[in-house]
């Protein structure tokens, strides 16, 4: 570590005026400590691009206890313990705890080798079992019952001698949700960190053998073609084709609202019914895709909010009528992927290198389906169900008068919800009103106001002393944070936004900055999408846009992968593109150099 040269220290971050009480939203153990000034922290804007509501801080608390447990305690990675996180002004900063002592690395390696080796050796069968377990967790979260607290218990509680009244299950079932969420996250990281390890090995090899190879080219050799992330979009295209075949395509016009379209289909006899059947089938599970990446309660799935799919459908219907939507040319994509891999392999000079290349690439392709698809199961399917279940508890709290509306539950920390439910439980038992409204409603109002204020704060991309060398390949690949990126954070060119060159090509066009997927309807054909982060559910948007720019993401991020497949330029991991670019700006996206220039 060198002396600090540019980034503020954690202790120098002042409270945002008007939101001085932000600490009340988060647990004491998320606050920066005096000693934290000695370490380098970077803003995790990939997962937390906006200030986090109190309940949503569970999406840092739980994942980091799962990730750290996996690397530090379960597989015992030799060179790393876990990730520490801190919250300041509603934003999450993280730092990794490395293991530097060679003796300690060796001691940990003795444990790591056999453990990691076991998972790699049995990867496919372990992944099959994994899917079963996670599907089980999804079923469990969906079946958690939120007690209805009737006036009195139904007969069977007495005649079956159950003996336990519903209020008992209020707190228990709420905590069951939290436990399931934690279990999901442990499984999420169970295979993921090793999967990333396989990527990092292959990326490093390619960069040594071909110093000028771009991350995006390495990613193209690895990418699986038949992965879940394409499925929701494919389903939508299928529904568009069906609408045309059945002659109900006239209902899918730009600006039409989902509920109206669905209601109109009810009146269209056999054709309408047939489409609705196909729609119902596609929805489960493919519409469980989240419009975000599952780190905020307002990252709703397509099933929760049909805006995204019904915004995309008119375009697809028009494309079908204009000559049809070609299915994804999977064979061609596979051939192209293999052509690139063979091209690089042929340039290796020795048979040894070629054999090592084959091993590493093979390992990447082995882990790729898990690394890509786990997000659908975990961040999308499970997590959107989890948030909806929490919202059901919110609805109960609203019904008994503690909250003004169900969504307000997300303004309370999970420990506060636990307390509110105890209050409700006691009140229901005693036959008195709960006391939570007077206690929580002013708190909730203040927090909503603070979140609005905090939204305008520009978090520094990093805090603390700049490390001499940022050599953690995983950080580089996942977050796109490199020594050069840190330099550009410190010395920004006012008109140029620098990020990761994620998909090749150069285009100019008009920017559309979307902070929230809810704004997706405002996107116009041929615009350049500028977003904090994209997720697979955004895929239909790519049919409309010319290029994509994101604040966060590396060469293996969703925006990067989808943009490459659509053959459009993309620059990801820009840090603050959504702040420096405004809707209506004319910008030039250079997907080869990884830059975005504001032209006017």
């Amino acid at each position, binding site marked *: 570590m060198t002396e600090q040269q540019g980034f503020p220290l954690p202790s120098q971050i002042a409270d945002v005026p008007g939101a001085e009480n932000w600490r009340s939203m988060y647990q004491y153990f998320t606050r920066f400590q005096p000693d934290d000034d000695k370490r380098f922290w970077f803003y995790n804007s990939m997962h937390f691009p906006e200030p986090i509501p109190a309940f949503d801080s569970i999406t840092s608390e739980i994942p980091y206890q799962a990730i750290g447990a996996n690397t530090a305690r379960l597989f015992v990675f030799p060179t790393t313990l876990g990730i520490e996180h801190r919250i300041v002004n509603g934003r999450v900063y993280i730092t990794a705890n490395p293991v530097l002592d060679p003796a300690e*690395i060796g001691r940990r390696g003795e444990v790591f*080798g056999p453990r990691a080796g076991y998972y790699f050796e049995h990867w496919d069968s372990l992944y099959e079992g994994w899917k079963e377990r996670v599907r089980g967790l999804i079923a469990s979260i969906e079946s958690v019952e939120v007690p209805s607290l009737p006036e009195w218990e139904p007969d069977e509680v007495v005649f079956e001698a159950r003996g336990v009244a519903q209020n008992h299950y209020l707190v228990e079932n709420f905590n069951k949700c939290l436990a399931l969420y934690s279990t999901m996250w442990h499984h999420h990281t169970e295979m993921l960190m090793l999967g990333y390890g*396989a990527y990092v090995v292959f990326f490093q090899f390619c960069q*040594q053998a071909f110093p*000028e190879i771009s991350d995006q*080219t390495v990613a193209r050799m690895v990418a699986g073609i038949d992965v879940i992330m394409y499925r929701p979009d494919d389903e939508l295209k299928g529904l568009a084709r069906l609408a045309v075949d059945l002659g109900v395509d006239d209902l899918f016009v730009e600006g039409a609202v989902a509920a109206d379209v669905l209601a109109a289909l009810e009146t269209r006899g056999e054709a309408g019914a047939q489409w609705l059947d196909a729609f119902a089938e596609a929805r489960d599970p493919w519409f469980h895709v989240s419009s975000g990446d599952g780190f905020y309660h307002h990252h709703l799935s397509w099933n929760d909010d049909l805006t995204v799919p019904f915004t995309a459908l008119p375009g697809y219907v028009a494309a079908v009528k204009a000559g049809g939507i070609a299915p994804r040319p999977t064979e061609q994509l596979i051939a192209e992927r293999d052509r690139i891999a063979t091209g690089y392999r042929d340039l*290796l000079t020795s048979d040894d290198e070629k*054999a090592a290349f084959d091993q590493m690439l093979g390992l990447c392709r082995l882990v790729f389906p898990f690394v890509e698809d786990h997000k659908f199961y975990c961040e999308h399917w499970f997590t959107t169900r989890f948030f909806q279940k929490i919202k059901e508890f919110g609805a109960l709290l609203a019904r008994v008068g503690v909250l003004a509306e169900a969504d307000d539950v997300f303004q309370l920390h999970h420990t506060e919800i636990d307390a509110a439910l105890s209050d409700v439980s006691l009140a229901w038992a005693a036959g008195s009103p709960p006391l939570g409204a007077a206690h929580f409603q002013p708190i909730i109002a203040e927090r909503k106001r603070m979140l609005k204020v905090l939204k305008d704060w520009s978090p520094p991309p990093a805090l603390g002393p700049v490390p001499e060398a940022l050599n953690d390949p995983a950080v580089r690949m996942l977050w796109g944070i490199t020594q050069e990126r840190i330099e550009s954070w410190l010395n920004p060119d006012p008109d140029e936004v620098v990020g990761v060159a994620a998909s*090749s090509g150069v285009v100019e066009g008009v920017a559309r900055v979307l902070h929230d997927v809810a704004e997706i309807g405002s996107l116009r054909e041929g615009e350049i999408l500028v977003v904090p982060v994209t997720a697979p559910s955004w895929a239909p948007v790519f049919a409309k846009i010319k290029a994509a720019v994101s604040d966060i993401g590396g060469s293996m991020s969703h925006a990067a992968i989808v943009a490459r497949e659509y053959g459009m330029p993309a620059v990801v991991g820009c840090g603050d593109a959504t702040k420096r670019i405004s809707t209506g700006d004319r910008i030039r996206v250079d997907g080869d150099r990884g830059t975005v220039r504001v032209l006017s």
Partner: protein
Amino acid sequence: MSGSLVVPLADASSAAEVGGKGASLGFLARAGIAVPPGFVVTAGAFAAALSAAIDADGALRAELTALPAGSLGEIGRVCAAFRARVADTPLPGEVASAIAAGYAALGGGSADVAVRSSATVEDSADASFAGLQDTYLGVCGSSSVLEHVRRCWASLYNDSSVAYRRRLGMPEDGIAMAVVVQRMVRPRAAGVMFTRSPVTGDRSVVAIEGTWGLGSALVSGDVTPDSFVVSKITGEITSRRVSVKGRLHTFLPNGPGVTVTDTPAARRDAASLTDDEIRALADIARRVETHYGAPQDIEWALLDGDGPAASRIVLLQSRPETVWAARGAAPVAAPKARPADHVLSLFGKPL
């Protein structure tokens, strides 16, 4: 063939006869890669002129051979005398008429040509004489061609060239020079390209440098060229750096030859190549590398016109890349007992 005084470029193949540059241009032409039409005045023609006229008794060569490497003053004196003889001694009639016939076949009369030295030891991978011999652009008329062929021959006796040979202890008797005579091109842009990165040695890219007009602006260091890097595998242009190109070398036919001017303002900051042209160049570079079976260092020119980029590219030279070839490289990795062992060793201790 060894007796030929002049050979068409398309037939030029033996480096001993046509020099490295002539052989490489002939090789390219036969591989179907466009080069400006031309012929080679063979090393045999030089040898004939040397033994029949210029240094008939071998005295000058003997004198040079006897000079110690460090005696720069002596080398300068003998070289000056030698060059005067090369310039002034009447050539054997058959040599002069062969050259005139070659020029006539290129159009003769007022055809503008480039006269380029092509030393028989130049351009080989292990003894690069790059830049030590001369090239004359915009030569016009039979007698002028003859005069510039003599100048190329004379350049073999530049003080620096001889000093270099003396340092290497090369026998003067074995020294010969061929001369390439080619139709002038008037490129829109020109430059050099390498079939591996000159910066990192990466063999998966073609690195292209270019500027407006003649490549001499770039080779002479008169401008900082635009530079582009193209992936051989994906065809993507992975790096582009467009620089301010202050000076412009152009060729004016039948007139003053090469002129050097300030680049017109509109073109100074503009990229000298379009993406299509960059890709077409990279494509040709790959073909040349494949033909040679080794990384190449290539001079190219892009002609004016509306045709497809590939049809407007001619190559002026290709030779083996020497810098990275000499370095070699340790293998990046070796296979392990199990694929997973790569991950295990990255993170610490192997299984």
